[in-house]
């Protein structure tokens, strides 16, 4: 009886808390990327493998949450935000975890030891990209406050500002990535050509972490602006 009672069943399950939960898992996943790279740089194979396994585990967990959110979003749900926008934000968040998984997979499979000349720049880039993800996660945590204020006013402005900050941070990671590529270019002949190509790819993927964090923020902007 209670399930069919109008007052008992009018409140659907809001996707916003689940979206936040997903982002927390994604952030955990991204945070292990610098841990992995540092282990590779220090030649700690066991620690690297552990980090890689954690990344794979959290990525799978994020996928589970993603699927749950998708299946629990019937069209009959009337929400303060557009259903499509929620799914878009979710998709972008998930891309962060997928990218982390790609990096971890490639680096461990190819046993890519970090050459000394790019060690510091690589770790700095990864760290900066994780900072972008952290800021993105903080923005997602503001969804409760946004809902409380009806996605308008000061709170919405504050989130807009945070998204602006995220864009700047992403620009910063672009520059770090470009600088790192230049360093790699200068030392290309010291490495096996395939390894060089794969390092360019890893650098790009690390930058993608910040890229997808930025895109998550941009999609959130659309979600607010409905």
């Amino acid at each position, binding site marked *: 009886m209670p399930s069919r009672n109008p007052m008992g069943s009018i409140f659907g399950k*809001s996707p916003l808390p689940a979206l936040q939960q997903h982002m927390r898992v994604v952030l955990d996943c991204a945070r292990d990327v610098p841990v992995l790279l540092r282990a590779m740089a220090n030649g700690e194979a066991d620690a690297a493998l552990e980090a890689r396994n954690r990344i794979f585990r959290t990525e799978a967990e994020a996928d589970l949450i993603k699927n749950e959110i998708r299946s629990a979003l019937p069209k009959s749900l009337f929400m303060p935000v557009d259903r499509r926008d929620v799914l878009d934000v979710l998709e972008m968040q998930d891309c962060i975890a997928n990218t982390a998984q790609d990096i971890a997979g490639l680096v461990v499979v190819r046993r890519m030891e970090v050459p000394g000349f790019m060690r510091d720049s690589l770790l700095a880039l990864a760290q900066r990209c994780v900072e972008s993800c952290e800021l993105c996660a903080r923005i997602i945590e503001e969804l409760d406050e946004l809902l409380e*204020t009806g996605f308008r006013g000061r709170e919405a402005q504050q989130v807009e500002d945070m998204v602006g900050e995220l864009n700047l941070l992403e620009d910063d990671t672009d520059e770090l990535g470009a600088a790192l590529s230049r360093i790699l270019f200068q030392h290309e002949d010291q490495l096996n050509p395939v390894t060089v190509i794969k390092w360019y790819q890893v650098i790009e993927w690390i930058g993608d972490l910040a890229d997808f964090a930025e895109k998550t923020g941009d999609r959130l902007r659309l979600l607010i602006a409905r």
Partner: protein
Amino acid sequence: MEIIAEHGLLFIILAGAFGLFMCWGIGANDVANAMGTSVGSRAITIKQALVIAAIFEFAGAVLAGGDVTDTIRKGIVDQQFTAANPEILVLGMLAALLASAIWVLAATSRGWPVSTTHCIVGAVIGFALVGVGADAVQWGNVSEIAASWVISPGLGGAISFLLMVSIRKLILDTEKPFESAKRWGPAYVFLVGFFISLVTLFKGLEEIHLDLSVRMSFVWALVIGVALSILGWSMIRRVTVDEAADKTFHFASVERVFVPLMIFTACAMAFAHGSNDVANGIGPLAAVLEIVHAGGKVSESAPLPLWILGLGGVGIVAGLATYGHHVIKTIGTNITELTPSRGYCATLGAAVTVVLASRTGLPVSTTHIAVGAVIGVGLARGVGAIDLRVIGGIVMSWIVTLPAGGLLAALIFFGLKSIFT
């Protein structure tokens, strides 16, 4: 005529029993919908809700339940048509009561969201159609009632929407939301006291022989509103900032200010529900009683005895105490999306609308109005997710309940008629 003289007491006992049973059913199922938003937003506990419901349902029934009761007992069937054989009206009202009670019981046990209001109105129309004839139904009044079923949820929603927007402007979207909440809190308590008492007292209360001019109604409403807001102020004053909770949710402390406000709206809602829904059980009983007392004569002007309203109030409270608390608990735990500020808006919007309908003599569905009010808050982008399938269920219950109640009442009417004549 002889039938009434012969079986008068039996009719009264039957009507009393059926009426009490209906009120019990209303208390057991319906009250939960009225109190759900308050319990769900964690503003009051289930125990508090029960105490509030018991007191204010009773008060609402006795103080403001008369107009709707009058509508049910003489607003749907034109009694001129039954003047020649009043026993038809007696049997018909008994049939309507029994039919509604059976239908509501059957429907709720299967989980269908039916409204007792729709059921009793459908049942009274049903018996009138087969027992007296289509001319006896006061179609003008009936269409007014039907229109109110569509309009009232919309009105509840509109009021809630406006309340939500004002809270955003005055409290949430300010430099210091917590201070703003404390400053405006008493004003929002005032709104509860002022509107509910204004609508209730407007032009006086016949049942308790209270005559008031329009101006005096306003004065009394103002006095009650101010008195309540002082009480509310003393409660709000004690609310403190919870810094730990504010870290995870910046408006946690602001919401704490709305908790005392919800106590007032919960009272208002219980009052409103009592004032409207008691009539569903008591209206037909009043009609039977009146005819039997008059020795078979139908007198349009007989005033409604206060004790009948009291009886209805007792029935509702009994239903609440024996079974309703389970339903309140389940509904309360289902509603986790509602913060106290939203609960305040939804409950007050619904309560004002229901009391307005009560004083206009329109039997409305409290549940549907509460649903409308929640949707109003949702339209202000205030609720995480609203499952619109509920609206489909409500429309279905409309389409099914009206003819079902009518048909059942007609059948029972023929059964009773063959027994007593």
